[in-house]
């Protein structure tokens, strides 16, 4: 690979995730440093991805469901490593719900868990939409391959053909299972023929990802679905915890006995997509513990 490509690649790795502007600026900067003419960006990117093929790496791009902006990141196309991430029907969980899960086996206090969430949002693994946590652009990019392997059918935006998680609309007609991103529709792209009537609301989705067999033990599929997003987050947290094992010792901490309300004051305002009674959540904890063993 040319020095230009090497420099550019180093730039991408160090920036983790870049929006369209940033990545094009990076390209220009690299050319500038090496006194080279800036060539066609897409061709340039294509060449780099060609050399990355043998390493099972790829610079992928995708529109974040939040704003519809295009983002780029270097991703792993092999699903052998940090695997077990699961998609849920809703693809979103209120952060308060997530924090409740610190009660169980993981010895993380709620404040620590919140910091962990913050960190993950900063590093683009998760997205915090006013108190509701969803899969961030980095997770979506990295896990596309993996999720498709695990779950045959996934809600997919018919316009951009990427996974449709949040800010998604569903066709109202009874036989039609079309889903689209709100941003894709608004960006002036034409929707498929049938729809003038789009409705929002995950309960309207006619395609629900099949939960992994391993999670279905004593409970119904529908009861388990929201747990999956939580499980996703947990797995990411565990993975991150493993990575930072040498830096912080959060896993050795004493359990916080008090219930700490997070600093995000918006928690109470938002509708909970999951209604839970206390017994149910305790049952779920037992379920997780059972699975953990």
């Amino acid at each position: 690979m040319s020095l230009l490509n090497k420099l550019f690649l180093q730039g991408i790795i160090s920036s983790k995730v870049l929006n369209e502007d940033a990545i094009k600026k990076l390209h220009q900067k690299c050319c500038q440093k090496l006194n080279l003419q800036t060539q066609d960006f897409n061709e340039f990117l294509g060449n780099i991805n060609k050399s990355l093929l043998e390493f099972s790496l790829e610079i992928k791009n995708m529109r974040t469901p939040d704003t519809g902006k295009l983002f780029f990141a270097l991703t792993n196309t092999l699903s052998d490593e940090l695997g077990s991430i699961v998609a849920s029907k809703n693809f979103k969980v209120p952060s308060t719900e997530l924090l409740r899960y610190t009660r169980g086996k993981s010895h993380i206090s709620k404040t620590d868990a919140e910091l962990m969430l913050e960190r993950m949002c900063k590093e683009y693994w998760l997205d915090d939409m006013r108190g509701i946590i969803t899969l961030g652009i980095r997770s979506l990019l990295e896990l596309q391959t993996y999720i498709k392997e695990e779950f045959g059918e996934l809600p997919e935006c018919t316009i951009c053909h990427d996974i449709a998680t949040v800010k998604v609309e569903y066709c109202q007609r009874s036989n039609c299972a079309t889903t689209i991103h709100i941003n894709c529709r608004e960006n002036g792209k034409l929707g498929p023929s049938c729809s003038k009537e789009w409705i929002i609301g995950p309960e309207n989705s006619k395609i629900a990802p099949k939960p992994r067999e391993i999670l279905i033990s004593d409970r119904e599929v529908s009861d388990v679905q929201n747990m999956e997003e939580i499980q996703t987050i947990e797995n990411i947290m565990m993975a991150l915890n493993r990575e930072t094992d040498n830096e912080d010792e959060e896993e050795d901490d004493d359990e916080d006995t008090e219930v700490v309300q997070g600093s995000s004051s918006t928690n109470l305002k938002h509708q909970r997509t999951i209604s839970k009674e206390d017994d149910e959540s305790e049952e779920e904890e037992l379920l997780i513990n059972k699975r953990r063993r």
Partner: protein
Amino acid sequence: MVSKKGKRNESSESDESSVEEIRTTSRQTQGENSMGNTDSIQREFNRKAIVLVRLALFNQHKNIPLKKDDIVKKVLKGHSRLFPSILEIAQKKLEDLLGMELVELPAKEKTSDIFASQRGGSSGKTRSVSSGLYVLRNKIDFDLREEVVEVENETAPQNILLLIILSLIYVNLKELRSEDLFYFLKNLNLLQGKNYPELMPSYTSMLTESKGGGTLDTLIKTFITQGYLLRLKVKNHAQSENNAASFIFRWGPRAKVEFSEEDVKHFIAEVVKEKF
């Protein structure tokens, strides 16, 4: 490697000899094999080298040197004799893809007695034991990288502290007593025992803080684990009644690999220039 020498055929290049080795082994187990095996062996080597490259890249965020043991376990599935050949191929790939290389850290100095080598005798020659620890190092010129590669903002304060400590050690003829180090740091208003949350990444918790996460001692311990600093106990020949152990700090093997003396001199010059 001694075992390899014993099995070596006529070919002198280490790459070929390990290929030969495997070929003879497979011939023993599978009967007659055609020369086409060399190609598939080369392809297999290539595949393993790619796994090593990926391992090196993904290991980066841990910020601890990559162990040879881990490489042998995860990439070579225990076949340690393949290590040199696979490493060589991986180096070529790293250079070609990213302009980086895997560098082995120099062996740790075991003794704080720097005059041991001069005294001669059995302890005369410092036995060069390989460290078996590897770090990724950039081969691309710093000037080119300067505005392209993003600086890690979260750990920047720690890095500056490290550079300060390394500079202090350097100007003190590469060895600094711990009392002296802490004295100098005190002059910079960095006190032992005091917690400095500003030195830690923003996502570390208050719990880490309460456990002394942002203190000089913890940070120095981190630098030692990462391989940047080396702390040795001094043997007090004279006073053996004095139980208080004294320590000296030196550059760790990783610092020797990642920082050049020129870098440090530049840094010091910049700081002094600012001051005067």
